[in-house]
């Protein structure tokens, strides 16, 4: 059977693909400036839009009840309203998988998610090019697609890490000793040889099976890239920017082995890892699933709440459920607020970490009651290194495609795309 061009590319291109990314990255960044980071936080089950949408448009807007925790960050956020995710009517599952892709993945191939695309653009030189965290294991059976917002080009779901300790170790622990370097070197050579042998195994496979085997090839190659970073750590440019916290000094913050019972402690632990990752420049792109898209997380630990998240999202206009829904939504915004508070005081040479970051916070669904994609809650936090004019409420035209917004975020982060998902245009963020 012949070796096709496509397999050749995929099979041999790993090393070639790995290197130019670095150079390319060097071109676009001023080495004395802190890099721009990107974060995405997914909130399940939507919100009640009247409780979310701010009053007033432009710079003169008033925070809504759900957004009220951000009062000290009025000037650091950009709320974007009137975005429509895909179609007016949908469901938890589709709208979750479309949150960062603009198109859902239920039974179809869609775009790679923007966090993945941005990581490919800016994540290259960091130890963990794309950090993905979550708090809930994937949903069973047909609901898998709602457990995840990150996808790659091959329609592979990029699962989040749920255990703070495991995530932390992957970021900070495994880079430290000469022993690790020695081992990386030996692993690198074995991986290489096994990869070679595997290509011959692949040749007899049917095309479906080949596609799946390709995942194996890419994962080995990506792992090799990671090992390369351990074997030869990327050199810091003399006089160049260095993070104000070194990765090695984080070890005393290593989280406990067990996943915290308390939902708030758990979420904040994950957020702290995101902050540390960005602060130490261990990762430049981080995604947090605050719950999966059909989350039944029980929020009765909050005063005034007796129900789980999903139940309150189907509020049937019951005043009590609406109240609970609002409290739960606000709790999610409080997590963001806590994160922003911390990031705002991390100085990176004149600008704060928050200034140097673009955080996308929101949900793929407007509200559970209608399973609607119309007017989904979306806000941006941080100034993306100065490129974002913040402190605004951007009211897009009715039913503006969410893909338009995602495309604008991609462009803001330097990804050269002129179309994305179902985009018809862009949303002016600058």
């Amino acid at each position, binding site marked *: 059977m012949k070796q096709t061009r496509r397999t050749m590319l995929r099979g041999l291109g790993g090393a070639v693909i790995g290197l130019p990314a670095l150079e390319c990255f060097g071109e676009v960044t001023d080495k004395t400036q802190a890099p721009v980071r990107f974060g995405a936080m997914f909130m399940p089950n939507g919100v009640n839009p009247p409780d979310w949408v701010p009053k007033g448009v432009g710079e003169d807007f008033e925070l809504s009840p759900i957004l009220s925790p951000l009062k000290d960050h009025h000037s650091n956020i950009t709320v974007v309203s009137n975005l429509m995710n895909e179609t007016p009517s949908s469901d938890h599952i589709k709208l979750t998988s479309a949150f960062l892709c603009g198109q859902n993945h239920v039974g179809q191939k869609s775009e790679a998610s923007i966090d993945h695309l941005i990581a490919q653009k800016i994540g290259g030189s960091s130890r963990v090019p794309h950090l993905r965290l979550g708090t809930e294991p994937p949903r069973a059976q047909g609901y898998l697609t709602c457990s995840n917002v990150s996808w790659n080009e091959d329609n592979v*779901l990029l699962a989040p890490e749920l255990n703070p300790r495991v995530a932390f170790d992957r970021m900070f622990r495994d880079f430290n000793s000469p022993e690790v370097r020695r081992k990386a070197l030996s692993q690198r050579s074995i991986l290489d040889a096994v990869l070679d042998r595997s290509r011959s195994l692949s040749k007899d496979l049917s095309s479906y099976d080949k596609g799946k085997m390709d995942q194996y090839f890419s994962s080995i190659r990506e792992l090799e890239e990671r090992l390369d970073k351990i074997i030869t750590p990327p050199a810091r440019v003399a006089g160049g920017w260095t993070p104000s916290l070194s990765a090695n000094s984080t070890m005393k913050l290593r989280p406990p082995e067990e996943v915290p019972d308390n939902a708030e402690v758990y979420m904040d632990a994950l957020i702290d890892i995101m902050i540390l990752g960005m602060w130490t420049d261990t990762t430049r792109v981080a995604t947090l699933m605050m719950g999966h898209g059909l989350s039944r997380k029980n929020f009765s630990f909050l005063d005034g709440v007796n129900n789980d998240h999903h139940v309150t999202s189907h509020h049937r206009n019951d005043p009590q459920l609406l109240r609970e829904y609002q409290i739960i939504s606000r709790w999610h915004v409080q997590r963001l607020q806590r994160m922003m508070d911390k990031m705002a005081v991390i100085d990176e040479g004149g600008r704060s970490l928050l200034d140097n970051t673009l955080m996308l916070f929101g949900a793929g669904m407007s509200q559970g009651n209608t399973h609607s994609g119309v007017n989904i809650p979306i806000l941006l936090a941080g100034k993306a290194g100065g490129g974002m004019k913040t402190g605004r409420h951007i009211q897009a035209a009715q039913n503006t495609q969410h893909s338009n917004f995602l495309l604008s975020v991609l462009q803001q982060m330097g990804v050269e795309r002129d179309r994305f998902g179902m985009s018809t245009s862009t949303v002016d963020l600058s």
Partner: protein
Amino acid sequence: MMSLGRFLAAFIICLMTRPLLGFEKPNVLIIGDSISINYTPIVQKILADEANVKRVPGNCRFSAYGAEHVEDWAMDEKWAVIHFNFGLWDWYGWQQGTKATPKNYRRNLERIVGHLKATGAKLIFATTTPPCPEAEGSSRVLVTPDRAKEFRDVALSVMKANGIAVNDLHGTMFPVLAKHQKAANDVHFKPSGRDLLAVEVAASIRNALNREAVAGEQRRASEPVGKILTAAEKTRFLQSAVHGGDGPQSRAAGYDEQIAPLLKQNCYRCHNEETHQGDIRLDNLMADLARERELWDKIEEQIATNEMPPEKPFLSEDQRVKIIDWISAQKDNVDWSAYRQPGHVTLPMLNRNEYENTVRALFNEKHFQDDDTHFDFAKTLSDDGVGDTGFGSDRDSPSLAMTSARMEKYVRITEDVLDYYLYTDESITYQAEAEEMKATTAVLTPTENGVMIKANRDSLYTRWQYPRTGWYLINVKAWGERIDNRACAEMVIYLDREEVGQVRLLATRAQPGNYRCLVWIEKGYHTLRFRPQRSGMTQEESLLPVPPPFPDKPVIADFNDLGLGTGVYMCMDKMAIRGPLTKLPQDFNRNEHYREGLTGPPARSVITQQNTPAVERDNDLAWEKQTGLTINREVSHEEVPSHYTDVWVLPLVKTDFSEPPPVAKLIVAEGEGSSAARQVISRFGKRAFRRPVNAEDIDFFLKFYKAEVATGAGHRAGLKAALFAIMISPDFFYRIPQTSTATRERRLDSFEMASRLSYFLWNSMPDEELFRLAEAGKLTDPDVIDGQVIRMLQTAQGKRMAGLFAREWLGYRELGVTIKPDDTLFKNTYYARNVESLFKNETAAFVNHIFAKNRPLEELITADYVFWNKELAQYYGEASEVSEILAASIHGSPEVKIAVANGTYTLQLLLYEGWISRSAEIVIEGKTIRKAYDQLKEQGGTFRYGSVLRHTLTVTDGNIEIEVKSNNDPNTHIGGLILSKPPSRDSTDAGSERKHQVSDGLRPAQILDNESDLDLEGVIKAINFGQTKDVQIGDVRFVAAAANSTVDAVTNKAAGDVYSGEYAQKIPQVTVGPLPETNDDLSKVQLSVNSSRGGLLGMGSILTVTSHPTRTSAVDRGLWVYEKLFGKHLPDPPIVPALDEGTGEAGASRTFREVLEKHRADRQCASCHNKIDPIGFGLENFDPIGRWRNIDGGKSIDATGVLPDGGTFNGPRELKQNLVKNKADFYRNMAQTVLTYALGRKLEFYDRPEVDKIVKQLIATDGHSHELFKMVARSYPFTHASSTKFVEESK
């Protein structure tokens, strides 16, 4: 009329231009959109005897898509002819919008042609059939003839330039378009048009094949079909095709006469050419139950469930039955086996469970139990979600994919596992003299044989690298210095920051102690720290001789003279650590687990440094008086007993002291060197890849061994490199088909069957016996398979599978993960008892019992036995109504305020008044209800443990105040309180002795001397106040809980104890068999016939996971039964209408059932909720955490219901009897569920003959579980494979 089948046979024979026998049939590939999807089956039939006609699975869509994928489509096989078309999607711009331009079309076609030419096949391009004259239905795009022509010209020019033959389907169809096209807004064709196209395509393919076969023959590939078919034959074929014959594609019998008129009358009005609501047209049915199977399934379902027609005129009952019976009869008439295919599972990859089990089994077959190795895969590897066991379509699911993050974890696990197994018998020893150790103080105080450091201040530590994970043994030679027997030094051993052991140093300078400690150490660098801290001594210890004074130093009175200040000291001589151990030390008592109490001698408050000698003495005297012991004040030289000097320090970390794993068998007794390594690799490789390995494989992996050894590393390091390479090879992660070049179905070979069986029934690799049978080639023998299935189900691995299977199938995997009962409401029950894992074990044990013991499957629902341990039996036995948990104290003279909504209540106070006569005045809402009295006197001298005070009151200020004025008697208290709504019917209940009178004010209280008179109707709150133990009164049980906490909600003047408690109802005796007396393994308990508990529907796992955090959900429970047990599916609910009505009322005034009844009154909701809600109502006697209850929200449970089939029931037991009446549906679901699990893919229509066969067999054999598993393992899709997917797909 000649039948289509016979016609085709004649057609083929008369046109046969070359001998067929003795030739291998050439492969023909058809590439195209939905038009070709439709005609391909006919082409296949026409050419059945002369070519293997295949089509790319699915829709090939637009040219850009084709250009991207054509290489994949065409590269699997050697094709003689490829017949292809692109165009429709490009015209209409489906899914590509404005990118669909003639220019792009040309570029894409050129790319496609380029790829196709490389295959060496004869190529035929079919022109695109004409556009529909109106705007196309789905895209609303109108394609003009001009646009079509523009594209067509592009295509023709590309083909001409490349010398590719053209089959002009456009030309064929154009003149007869109106006759054959489905609709003016639909580009598809009626069966007549489809057949016409098929004839043309078949002819052009045959033509090309002939040209290829007959060398030198000069015929045009696109020769018109008329030249090949005689005019008469063509006419006959078309007539036959257009009007239908009695061949396999024909109209089902009786359709035109019986069914079409009914559909016309009732359905066409919405489902016609014009309106086709829900995208369904019924006026153009072919009445072919096989080819239109999805549509007919839908028709059957909608009519069976009376959902359609939604408005008048409705179908009469007779008409409905007629249609349903007809459909069902026609379905049975279809020869589904004609559609049978093995299906394709895309490169099965080990999921997390399988990976973990396989790794464990790989190294030690006996070590398949989760606890036996110390690798916690669960923590490291992320949950695969559905991929965990293989349900549904998860093998193909996007989550079960290799990503670099996952690979990274595999690499790490592989490293660890190899270190663990390869090196467990190689240990290291580190030792250090105390003087050499690092210390937290610069100045160490030397002694003649060690150093002395002060308690609570300094520590000694070492940092070493531990090469492997395992048990390490620490030996420390040390003793303590102390001045008396009130305080001593206690040595705490830390591993990094964790305290791992703690022991009081009672050995003395004269007899230094040997302290040993077992510690589990992960490989890597770690700090071991020894830190003394000041500790009290136990009474026993305080009788030990006090050590002699420090030589050459002033005696103790204190250590000030040493410049050390007062205090106690640890002296350490040296320490050593050795490990990992291959066996636990013999004298180590592994049963003496972690002892929490180890550190805590009774604290003697007298031990403080500030105490003067006088105070000390007084304290000593007081202590002696209190304990009756005498403090030894003499300085003694007696020996310290050896159990104080040779001490096992029991770890403080909770640990199972399991024996270390045996060294992996594959390493033992192999010798060393290349030939030994070759043997290990060969044996390990075969097991890891689950197939024999060839010499090439072995040489490849041996290279790693040699390379490593060449660097000077040892034999094991070499092996490690080789085994590492094996374990990260794709052959390990994936089950790679060994003979995948065959694309048609093929029988699995014996090794593949071994893996299929083992991953199906064990979620793990084959064991020795399976390997042996595979080697002997016996696993294709159905009888051998049967034997293995039964053997495997009865092993421990089979049991593990049953648990996983149950968890996935029944959906309780989320219990405790994402679905959690409310932790305030159920703090003292669900959470205090930690029943969650018991629930899961219970269900797993039960399902395993059904599977392993060949029980009838219906026992899953109706079993009259359960698997409980003592704790679970108690939990279910006292199943209870949860009341609001309040806390209060009514000891002494308390005042209690209970917040309630305004309204009228009956209040019953339970008076628990000790064993001597009590007297207290009870005041409620400011009025005296009961005066102090002499209880013994009032009750005729016979004290009954409690008495009841009942009265009715109306609350207007939001709370009830209760005051107990006791006359200096501290022991009077109210034991409990029951607050209820007075039942209105009481006024007519003349038979009742109880007089409930609704009243504004206070009525004289009734004092009932019989607790069984408690009125338990309409209870809102029930609080157990004062009892520290559980109390039973009649059918009511009060469960006492936490004590000694204060609660703000209650004003409590007296400083008495505070209790919280809850109220429980007793449930009827449920068991006849003896209850388990221990909390060890769950054991089988026989239930009484009246019990509601047995089966899945009486299990906490199911009942909890189908509830919301604070309440039950009849909808969720009903849906669960409907889906999980009967495999039926409801359409997704429409956008939920806002249910405004009635939400303004207080929630308590209506049961949830009443709210749901209202919901179901909406016809749109009712069609589904009528099917599921009643089932849920039947389970309402089970509360949100699976306990029994008779009341909810103050009202008695109404557990009656009517099922859609008319069956009525009251309560769970009758519900279950009703559910199993429909055995066929239940068996079908079981067959589908197990087959899905076994295959690891979604079932498709082509699996139906197998499912039917299994159901039939189950009905014939009373549904015993072994039949089910044997049938599945023998089934066609389980024993066969295909490398291609056949999925029919329309646009």
